[in-house]
């Protein structure tokens, strides 16, 4: 698990490499129908934004992934009904599989 500070260092290196002055493709802003390269202040903000985004993904990405992987409420209720009828564990297995596939960061 990377700290926010570590991710900021990584983001700084990645953003620095993107700058056209360093041979990269640059980051651009479009304002008043003019497309221009980021100012140094905007590049600095981009580093902060990227680090925060990466940190949030690291800490919370599993929540979104689980949400998308869980079956619908209707399907889960159907699983629970048939589990009751057939004494199976389909619903619990489904939940356990989603959690296993998208683990919470330690």
């Amino acid at each position: 698990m990377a700290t926010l500070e570590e991710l900021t260092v990584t983001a700084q290196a990645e953003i620095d490499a993107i700058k056209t002055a360093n041979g990269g493709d640059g980051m651009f802003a479009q304002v008043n129908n003019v497309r221009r390269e980021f100012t140094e202040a905007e590049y600095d903000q981009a580093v902060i934004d990227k680090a925060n985004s990466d940190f949030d993904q690291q800490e919370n990405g599993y929540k979104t992934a689980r949400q998308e992987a869980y079956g619908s409420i209707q399907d889960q209720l159907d699983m629970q009904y048939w589990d009751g009828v057939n004494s199976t564990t389909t619903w619990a297995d489904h939940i356990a599989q989603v959690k296993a596939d998208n683990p919470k960061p330690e």
Partner: protein
Amino acid sequence: MSGSLIKIDEEIVTSAVASVTLTGIDSTYDVYQVVASNIVPASDSQAIRIRVGTGGTPDSDSEYDMAYKVFESNTSFANHSEVNQTSWRGVTYGTGTGEAGNLIIYCFNFSNASEYSFITQEEVTYTNSPHLASFTGGGVHTVAEANDSISFHMASGNIASGRFVLYGLKK
């Protein structure tokens, strides 16, 4: 006619940019509307981010609060709330065919230096999963200041294409 939409600014992105800023918000109109359509990120699975601006520069402070509901066609609907963020956010957009994002934002109190700036936000997209995702919610920037612009960027990477239009609602 009262309530008519008066176009203030339009930015059409055809070459990838990291941010788009719509300018021209002042006290001419009480309420402004942003219509953004066919927004495609350069990187798959990225949520759009929104900031108010002062002097045309986006405010990156940690004063953005919002509450919203996300309606998705493949799972149950989800309620969300966030406080003290560095931007408002939207749903996740994808890069595949037909996965563009579309949103409407109403802006309130932006030019009033004594009040917080508020937005209501509606979005619809076909996400990277892919499935339909719709969003409705509201946000506040808890700083009593005048804002003259609103800007957009993706959580990571560029905006590959899209059309952003700012309208004033005629008094």
